[in-house]
């Protein structure tokens, strides 16, 4: 065992945040080691400038293709379906979810859930991380989202403003390959100034917006001029295309990184309608693309099947002296060896829950007692129905537009804001259609032959659903803790999660349902929404029942702030307690607001990389 290995930077986690760090530091000549808990992906994909797998890559070329096969033959096509279930680096699954009986603990999956409500989101522990199965929605936050406390007396303020983050958003949008039009995404066309986002005057995204689905266009027409009223004030309903990290038509000489197929064929999204759980042609961004570029710097080494489990401080308890990890040979077998490495700087990029776990297990960076606390998600409420006419459901990327006009406003003093996502895949999320619903047509509705075929042809193309991503505020009791009784087969801790949804968010869900009802009325949509007490995410507000799902947006387990007593990292994303420790990922975000968090987190990570670089090169 060689415990003297040293790198400029040791990064824990080969997901998007770790990949960005590695690429930025490697490009600037720093030696970087990434420890990745999960298995590798081998020869990753063909890109315009990488037509062959690199020599040193010992794994077979077909790993990504293996993910595809696993997906095709998986019974439950859940987000983690294509990716290996690895008992040495276990991951949460949506199929683990169930209501938690009062006073009991639910521990049938990787998470140990103490309730009272189940935490419904998941992530992936394999090289590339959770962006392997993300949808790729890349919204910026609103300026007011950075100042919730000051403006609305709710949640927390960020230690930075939108204006400070703006240049980093631009870098993230360029490097992830976001397709959109700036003159739509600044929301200036929306008659609600609270949601306006100032973009730099000359700024444009590198690829044109992804075409809006036929369903989106149908909504745009049908909802033109629609308004809803909250607390006596009118707000517009505007359908706007969603910025997506998915290859569209490049502007100028920009070329997106990596997709299967030759550059001249566009490498664009081809409408496989499978972005979650896996894009077969990698037209959707995933972190493998950034990892590939990081490796090309020649300065970055990625060690897969290496689970970091402890950070050891120097004798003064000041700096992180060593990162301890367990290297296993096979995911079926717990046999492993323990190693340690050191880095001038250590970066944790292992995902919000895993970062918190590692800090708690090591008893570091927690003088504020905030590590693991303030866990947030977007409780996502669905409504679904049949459109009066064929809108061509089950086509295109998962979502190409949304209704962002209610993301901000004075109502945030009293209840949560939300963004509405328009889903292109019929009832696949709420009902598992078509594979989950057709058996009922055969077994219970007793259809067969022409009748069955015609029924499917006349009903399924009219299916649609909304997703309401409702904001949640930081709450010290929504938290990840550790318990010696709960460990995985390598002996590492499993996350113990307590979680609840406050009335502020429940009131947002109720307002969302009202908006949905009005839209259904206006367009003559036949509603099929049903919230059942047996749903894992069932809750009530003022006597009405609602159900939420996980969005996969795990935020806030090691929040940043400007006070070491109430936050874990400073605005530079550096631990208040240990100067050579940086944390990256959505765990840094003090509030979640209404945008999917990864673009903001990526922007923050580019900034953090700059800060690490400056720390390594003091002038």
């Amino acid at each position: 065992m060689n415990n003297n290995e040293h790198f400029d930077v040791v990064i824990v986690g080969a997901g998007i945040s770790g990949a960005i760090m590695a690429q930025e530091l490697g490009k600037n000549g720093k030696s970087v080691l990434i420890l990745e808990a999960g298995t590798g992906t081998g020869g990753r994909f063909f890109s315009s400038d990488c037509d062959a797998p690199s020599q040193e890559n010992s794994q077979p070329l077909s790993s990504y293709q293996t993910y595809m096969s696993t997906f095709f033959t998986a019974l439950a096509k859940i987000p983690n379906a294509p990716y290996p279930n690895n008992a040495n680096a276990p991951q949460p699954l949506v199929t683990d979810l169930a209501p938690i009986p009062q006073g009991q603990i639910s521990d049938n999956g990787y998470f140990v859930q103490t309730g009272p409500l189940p935490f419904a989101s998941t992530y992936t522990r394999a090289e590339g991380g959770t962006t392997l199965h993300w949808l790729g929605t890349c919204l910026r936050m609103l300026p007011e989202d950075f100042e919730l406390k000051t403006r609305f007396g709710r949640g927390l303020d960020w230690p930075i403003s939108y204006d400070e983050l703006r240049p980093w958003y631009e870098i993230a949008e360029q490097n992830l390959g976001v397709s959109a039009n700036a003159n739509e995404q600044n929301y200036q066309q929306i008659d609600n100034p609270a949601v306006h986002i100032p973009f730099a005057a000359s700024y444009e995204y590198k690829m044109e917006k992804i075409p809006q689905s036929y369903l989106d266009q149908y909504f745009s027409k049908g909802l033109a001029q629609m308004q809803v009223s909250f607390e006596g004030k009118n707000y517009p309903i505007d359908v706007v295309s969603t910025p997506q990290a998915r290859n569209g038509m490049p502007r100028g000489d920009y070329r997106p990184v990596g997709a299967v197929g030759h550059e001249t064929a566009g490498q664009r999204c081809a409408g496989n309608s499978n972005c979650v759980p896996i894009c077969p042609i990698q037209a959707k961004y995933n972190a493998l693309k950034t990892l590939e570029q990081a490796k090309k710097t020649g300065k970055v080494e990625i060690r897969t099947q290496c689970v970091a489990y402890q950070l050891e401080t120097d004798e003064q308890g000041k700096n992180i002296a060593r990162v301890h990890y367990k290297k296993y040979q096979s995911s079926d077998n717990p046999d492993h060896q323990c190693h340690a490495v050191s880095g001038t700087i250590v970066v944790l990029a292992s995902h919000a829950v895993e970062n918190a776990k590692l800090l708690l297990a090591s008893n570091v960076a927690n003088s504020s007692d905030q590590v693991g606390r303030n866990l947030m998600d977007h409780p996502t409420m669905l409504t679904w129905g049949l459109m009066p006419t064929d809108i061509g459901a089950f086509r295109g990327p998962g979502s190409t537009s949304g209704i962002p006009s209610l993301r901000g406003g004075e109502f945030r003093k009293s209840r949560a804001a939300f963004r509405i996502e328009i889903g292109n895949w019929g009832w696949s999320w709420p009902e598992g259609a078509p594979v989950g619903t057709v058996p009922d047509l055969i077994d219970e509705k007793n259809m067969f032959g022409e009748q069955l075929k015609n029924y499917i042809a006349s009903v399924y193309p009219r299916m649609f659903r909304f997703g309401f991503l409702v904001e949640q505020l930081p709450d010290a009791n929504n938290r990840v803790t550790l318990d010696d009784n709960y460990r995985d087969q390598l002996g590492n801790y499993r996350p113990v999660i307590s979680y609840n949804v406050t009335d502020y968010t429940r009131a947002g869900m109720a307002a969302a349902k009202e908006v949905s009802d009005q839209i259904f009325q206006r367009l003559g949509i036949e509603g099929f929404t049903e919230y059942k007490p047996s749903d894992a995410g069932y809750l009530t507000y003022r006597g009405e029942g609602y159900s939420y799902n996980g969005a996969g947006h795990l935020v806030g387990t090691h929040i940043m702030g400007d006070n070491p007593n109430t936050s874990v990292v400073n605005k530079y994303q550096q631990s208040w307690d240990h100067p050579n420790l940086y944390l990256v990922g959505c765990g840094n975000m003090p509030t979640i607001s209404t945008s999917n968090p990864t673009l903001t987190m990526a922007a923050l990570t580019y900034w953090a990389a700059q800060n690490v670089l400056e720390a390594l090169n003091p002038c």
Partner: protein
Amino acid sequence: MDKLADFYQVSVVLTGYNRSRLMATGIGEEYFEVLTSLVPGKIIDELFICSRALAHEYKGEALNEKFREQILSNDRLGPVARNILKMWYLSLWYQLPQSWRETYGVPSQTPGKYQDIDFVISENAYIQGLVWPALGSHPMGAKQPGYGTWAFKPGEELTRINLGTDHPVSDIEEGNLS
């Protein structure tokens, strides 16, 4: 009489797709293999003989009515017929109902290639599921229709992959197989 031809005959009535469309999936023989390894030969023969006789005698709606009466509502044949239908549409084998298994099932003594549990028949089968063309789209994750096609009015996709038009079941295919 070729049993595979019988299998297609019963499949045409069950699925509402004609025989050439079913054969074009290239997956029928695999479904047939799954069926014959999980359901006793006697029951399969009974199903095939019954279906062939009905199709010989009845056409159109009358055939459907008789098919319901003699096959779908029969406690021995109904679950098997529905499983064939589900294979074609969803590419899945569903475990046969408990009561059927207790009465008619033959427990496999040795682990064979297939077991009577829920499973996806194969990667290729998933891609060939008939539910996708029935709902006017492509299987999620395969047969990509091309950039921007989702913006078109349904049915207008220029680049849509079409494996052949789905004509209504013809009398000839229903009745005269031999």
